[in-house]
């Protein structure tokens, strides 16, 4: 289940890359800006502002999920079976589907179109999510196929999966982009839904195996940017001096609108995008803590 394929991705690993986002995530980070990527199934997004209330979706929906009441389009997610027929029928791009079944060959054929750009820039394929390790077999097949075609590969992962799974992908991943979200495991649990012990254990494992790793640290103002966490990041840098980089991923609220379109509840509805001063302050603090690798990602 592929959630999106983004070509010319400039921020998901080195060089110019194609990022393949797989659907489904074991974490539910409060600040998630792709909430539609969390469930493993298809999701239908509805943008009322684009809807012309033409009724085409009503005609095509056999589950009664779409109704027109007094010229207003109502979409009942409880009745919806996510078949996607309404999306096909919608001429206004008010209904869209997140998630499509695609084969490794289909995905790879798109990825390979940009090979010359990867070669010039040192880029390649990034598998991201959601959490790509939730679809281990697909991710593994895609990695294998990409390696067979000589592509550079990145795996963008939250770290919350079994060591065995990482063992299996390890030979086919050139660079891990591993998330580190909170130092205090209780805070981690509160913010993401899971503790961080397994994540740290997997970091330890991957590092010990000589994997190339960049740590990706989403920082959300007032939520997980405590001095303890910054120190925690610096501590990881000391413990694992060969980390390739530590990217501070500053929170932005561009994803907020998506919660509504997918009928989801936004856990942090009123949070503003991190300002330049805040971002610089984070970097300065990290540098002061001896973490010279930290940079805005």
């Amino acid at each position, binding site marked *: 289940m592929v959630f999106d394929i*983004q*070509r*010319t991705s*400039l921020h998901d690993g080195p*060089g*110019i890359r*194609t990022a393949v986002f797989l659907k489904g995530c074991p974490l539910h980070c409060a600040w998630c800006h792709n909430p539609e990527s969390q469930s493993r199934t298809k999701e239908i997004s509805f943008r009322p502002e684009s809807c*012309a209330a*033409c009724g*085409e979706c009503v005609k095509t929906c056999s589950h009664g999920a779409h109704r027109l009441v007094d010229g207003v389009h109502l979409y009942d997610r409880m009745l919806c079976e996510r078949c996607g027929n309404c999306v096909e029928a919608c*001429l*206004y*791009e008010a209904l869209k589907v997140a998630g499509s079944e695609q084969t490794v060959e289909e995905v790879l054929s798109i990825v390979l*179109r*940009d090979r*010359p*750009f990867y*070669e*010039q*820039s*040192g*880029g390649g394929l990034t598998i991201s999510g959601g959490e790509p390790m939730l679809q281990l077999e697909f991710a593994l097949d895609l990695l294998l196929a990409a390696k067979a075609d000589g592509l550079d590969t990145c795996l963008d992962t939250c770290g919350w999966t079994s060591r065995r799974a990482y063992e299996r992908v390890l030979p086919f991943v050139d660079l891990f982009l591993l998330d580190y979200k909170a130092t205090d495991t209780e805070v981690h649990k509160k913010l993401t839904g899971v503790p961080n012990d397994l994540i740290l254990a997997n970091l330890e494992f991957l590092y010990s195996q000589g994997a190339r790793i960049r740590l990706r640290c989403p920082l959300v103002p007032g939520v997980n940017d405590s001095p303890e966490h910054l120190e925690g990041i610096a501590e990881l840098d000391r413990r694992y001096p060969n980390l390739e980089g530590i990217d501070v991923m500053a929170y932005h609220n561009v994803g907020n609108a998506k919660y509504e379109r997918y009928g989801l509840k936004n856990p942090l509805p009123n949070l503003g995008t991190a300002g330049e001063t805040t971002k610089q302050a984070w970097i300065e603090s990290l540098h002061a803590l001896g973490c010279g690798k930290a940079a805005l990602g």
Partner: protein
Amino acid sequence: MALFESANPRIHSEKYSVELAFTETYRRHIHDHPAIREARCLQSLMPHLFDPIRPGDLFAGRTHYLPIGFGLEDAAGGPVYYCYEDRIRPELEGLSEKELEPILGMLDFWKTESTIAGKLVSRLPEETRKATTNHIAEMMGRLSGTLLDYEKLTRIGLPGLRAEIAAGRKTNGDLPLYAGMDTAIDLLTEVIQSYASQACELAVSAKNEADLKDNFGLAAALEAIAIRPPETLREAAQLIWLFTMISGTVNYGRMDVYLGGFYCADVDSGRLTEAEALRLMQSLWQLIADRKTVFNGRVFIGGRGRPDETRADRFALLAMEATRTVIEIEPQLTLRFYEGMNPALMAKALDMLGEGRTFPMLFNDDVNIPAVRNGFGIPLAYAEQYLPYGCGEYCLDHLSFGSPNCSLNLLKALEAVLHHGVDVLTGEKIGLDQGDPECFATFDELFAAYRRQVEYSVEALADRHCLEYQVENEAAAFLYASMLYDDCIARGKSLVGGGVRIKGGLIETYGMVNAADSLTVIRSLVYDRKLLTLPQLVAALDADFAGFEKEYRLMRLAPKYGNDDPDADGMLCAVSEHVASHTRSQAKRLGFDYFLIVNINNHMNIGLGAQTGASAEGRRSGAPLANGNTPTAGNDTQGVTAFLNSIVKPDVGLHAGYTHNMKFSKSTFREERPKVEALLKAYFANGGAQAMITVVGRGDMEAAINEPEKYRNLIVRVGGFSARFIELTPAIQRDLIARTLY
């Protein structure tokens, strides 16, 4: 005040005295050989066009043009013998009958004698006229795209030109062409000497040391080039500048080739400091900018086929610095490059683009040289001299002349096919009647009908192009341009009279992307998916989609060129290859060495769009056409790699230049510079022929509409030219904002 007018106050006391005297000269020599007539007319006209040296200028030679006159390119006092009656009429109010009479007589005279509006139009067969005077196919009636041999001029100077003419005379006899050329050189010498005197006067009356030095320097340079070949950068630049102004050409050739040696010799010998050299070029750049030729003003640097590459590269860097520091929309600095060229040039170019300059435009020799070799059917050494002048039409530096005199709106051709050959906006019959839309049972039948219409228009344009050259040749010899074009002097023939080594012609195509996308949509919705019938689709177009919301949406959602989509891009290639090949096949019939299309853009995508009804790619009636070979604004949605993959697909070896505009955000270009460099490198390695890059802030253009005074320096690439954003019309501004920003 004209330079020489001050010496003869009687002449300009009378309204239109210069035009009247010029007309009288023409009349007196009406039966003379065109070269002689031209020489006499130049003598009568040119002295009045040159303006005095402007304070601060380091070079002499500013001009203005009159409503009646003679010239080469329409951007600079042309084309040929012309009369802009509409500019004169409103000025006649209040004149006495006695004053009016000669002026009206003059206007009457030029009605039939002006080369394009008079002579050409009267010579056109009715069918050709009809087929080339409508919104599918139009002719501009002009001469455009001369690229003079400035290398020869600066090497041998005016005395060397006289010697070449003398040698020609020995071989070919005492032809009127040679007599005309001699007169033309005499006239240029007079202009030079007159400016030399003026510069001396300015020096004498100078108020400070700096002015004194500048003007003495100018006077000395002028005096030198009147009698010998130039020896310094200043002399060489002054000579090419005055030759440019008197000849009426508007592009400046490979400047690093012809000025590189002078520049390096001056700097290396200590005659000039780097700063002084830059100051000279800045002054030259300002003179070029002030000519306001808009679509022209090309200065070329870089590339293969430069004899002394090291020196040329040094000058190229100087030229880029001049462009970086003189914030103007001309000269249109153009960098040719190839794998293995001095990397400092490309690095500097990208720095400039990152700063928000739209220059230099980038042309990839590794793609273009083989393409030109094939397209023009010429040897490698010639192909290395390709130059994309004007809006990006390829020509061979002083080897070939091929004026782009026709425009062909391919989307309008498709519109005619769907409407019995009738223009939906005017109701006029403009094309072939190929029957009712419902009679096209298959897509192939429709596509064949479209091809027939295009072929009909191409052939009519080709016929007219040929006739235009004939009429222009009967009118004049274009003495100055002919002197600096291979092999006019040696053959004893003029530029369009059989002198030029490689004779060509060009058709400017428009709406190629729109026609292709429309055909893709029709194929998909009507013939493959059968969601609509062709008559239903045409009805939606005729209503400009009003009441056809569903049809409109279907058309908008169908695949479009620019997204690396094999079907949509494949259609673009088919449309491109068809019109390119058919045009190319006309050369033999016309007796040309080449006849090719270009798919460039100036601002005509807006004007021609306004003349074109709604189209099947979901374009509303009157909306702009796509720009060159760039996807329709906003239709490219799959990222810049997909965009770049799409635009390299049409065969480059069949045409004379397609333009590719691309806009990058400041943040991408500046913060991700290595990735942008890799992106461009990969694009060029994939077959990208050229790139016209604008780097602009996301909100800059919107903000400039609201507060234009703050954005005077916001320069954007429109198509084949750059412009100050705030000076563009609202329609063009909207079109630019709609284009995808990567």
